[in-house]
């Protein structure tokens, strides 16, 4: 396998692995936890390194996951004391833990392959050089770790799909049925920590956040079904990863950065053009409703005065601006639309309801 292929494969696997738990973070309103966790796992790695003096030791991985969970429980502990609110607790805990890690690295581990830039940016381009050989198997470490994380996440979601769905959308019911909310919460946070640790070595903490939050947020605008949201998130994440890789190759820029950028572009596209919830669809719907409502008003007005003594006067074109407070141009457009729709007939200045228009007005007045 060429190293170009390998880097892309790593990116795809990591993107999919991050997007899966990200869906639940977004739905459970804990997206900022991904930011906190992806920063603090560094502390676990540093401490693990001080204990083992070996960057490849699995203990580092365990330590990092443990600090991720520790972050969550520290935030909860602080929130529960009522001294500060949850958002402030998050904003306090993770900078402190991250600072400790940064200082430990710069003071005591400066000569090791552990630098703070790499933590934020990742070194995806170099990932293929760090290989694991095991019998006939010869894979980049990041690919192996990423695949294990992906399989783990996928397996957990498939196995616990019903439970997770219930605990996400109806906490109360889940609790009465015996699924402990605490267990679900910590289980999810452990999975997020494992994913963050598995990913962050290769892609850096910022990209972990981008991949966990942006694709699910985009998918959230595209569908109302959890299963589809999971699938779409993975698809968007993978697409952004591949596009980001080629963008980075093309312009010779940071791979992790351009992948994060592409997840943003994907969200922006969904934000603007999502079929039902996008800004464009929203605008179109609003304007259509506005015109429909105006036409309804017109037919109601005509129905009110139909056959009365002042009908000639009330049902003339010029009267609308006076009676309905419409600008002449707006009134002209409404009349044109209503005529095209077969709701009214025009006879010079005089407006008359058609059978269809009368029906619409009667229906509207009954509502």
């Amino acid at each position: 396998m060429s190293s170009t292929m390998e880097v892309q494969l790593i990116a795809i696997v990591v993107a999919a692995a991050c997007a899966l738990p990200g869906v639940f973070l977004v739905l459970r309103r804990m997206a900022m936890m991904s930011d906190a966790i992806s920063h603090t796992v560094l502390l676990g790695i540093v401490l693990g390194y001080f204990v083992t003096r070996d960057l490849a030791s699995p203990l580092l991985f365990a330590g990092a996951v443990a600090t991720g969970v520790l972050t969550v429980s520290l935030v909860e502990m602080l929130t529960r004391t009522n001294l500060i609110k949850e958002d402030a607790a998050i904003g306090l805990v993770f900078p402190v833990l991250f600072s400790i890690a940064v200082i430990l690295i710069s003071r005591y581990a400066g000569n090791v392959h552990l630098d703070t830039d790499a933590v934020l940016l990742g070194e995806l381009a170099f990932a293929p050089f760090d290989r694991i050989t095991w019998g006939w198997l010869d894979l980049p470490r990041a690919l192996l770790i990423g695949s294990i994380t992906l399989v783990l996440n996928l397996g957990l979601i498939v196995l616990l799909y019903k439970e997770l769905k219930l605990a996400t959308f109806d906490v109360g019911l889940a609790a009465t049925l015996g699924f402990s909310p605490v267990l679900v919460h910590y289980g999810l946070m452990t999975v997020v920590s494992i994913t963050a640790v598995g990913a962050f070595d290769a892609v850096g903490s910022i990209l972990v956040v981008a991949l966990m939050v942006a694709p699910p947020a985009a998918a959230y605008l595209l569908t109302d079904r959890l299963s589809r949201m999971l699938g779409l998130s993975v698809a968007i994440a993978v697409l952004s990863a591949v596009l980001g890789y080629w963008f980075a190759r093309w312009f010779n820029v940071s791979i992790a950065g351009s992948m994060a950028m592409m997840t943003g572009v994907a969200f922006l596209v969904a934000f603007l053009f999502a079929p039902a919830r996008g800004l464009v669809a929203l605008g179109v719907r609003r304007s259509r409703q506005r015109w429909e409502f105006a036409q309804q008003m017109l037919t109601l007005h005509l129905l009110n005065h139909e056959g009365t003594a002042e009908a000639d006067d009330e049902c003339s074109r010029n009267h609308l601006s006076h009676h309905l407070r419409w600008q002449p141009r707006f009134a002209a457009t409404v009349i044109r639309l209503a005529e095209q729709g077969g709701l009214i007939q025009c006879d010079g200045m005089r407006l008359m309801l058609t059978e269809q228009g009368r029906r619409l007005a009667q229906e509207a007045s009954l509502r």
Partner: protein
Amino acid sequence: MELFADYTLRMVALGSAMLGIVSGVLGCFAVLRRQALLGDAMSHAALPGIVVAFMLTGQRDPLILMLGAAGSAWLAALLLMSVTRTTRVKEDSSLALILAVFFGTGLVLLSWLQQRPDAAQAGLRSFLFGQAAAMVARDVQVMVALGVPTLLVVALFWKQFKVLTFDPEYAASLGLPVRGLSVLLTSLIIVAIVLGLQTVGVVLMSAMLVAPAAAARQWTDRLGVMIVLAGCFGASAGVVGALISATARGLATGPTIVLCLGALTLVSFLFAPNRGLIWRATRKMQLQV
């Protein structure tokens, strides 16, 4: 006192003190309005602005870089508001999204810049974790020129901000322009963030807003006292942290200041009268006896 005779150290101390006061004061509003994480998102979002400002002008003048940073942080805040207002994506997701995407874009621009032959951009990387030791008189001048008016605006709109913070509905019923005031307050927070970019760096700037306010909150229930305390906490932690980092080898300024702030906050959480944890525990014991 020999410490302050040194020109660099004097600049560092002055600048960090200014930064600490401004971010302490504005952080109080952010924390009380439950927008503590807004600062995190916006400080990360400032990165692309810094790089673009440098790319356009080719200068490292602090004012220009700060303008760029403020511009992109502003854009981020605007996007954030429009995403949360028009879609069902919740605030936490939009915060994380904007943080990561803007920062990623900043990294792309930064790595693109590094291909260019002119060496002047080397210092831009220090904006990630801050480098107080690089501060010169010009930086301090700009910080004071931006910080003092910011504090004045807070003093001017004191009553309005107070109502807005504690009871936005009441503020609206009084006829106050709630949205306008919110935008003004957010803009002031952006100024505070921008001031800290060089000293603390974009990654940890949020702690500069949150920690002094969270610590000050424990000592008092009055906004006025809290703000003064937070200003003092911010300034002292800023000065101490910056001085330690400027004199010791291999200590980035941002993390050092954050650790000083963390210690201060921990002390407040434990020992503050009435609210502090130790105080609470003793009262509980007295009640049991």
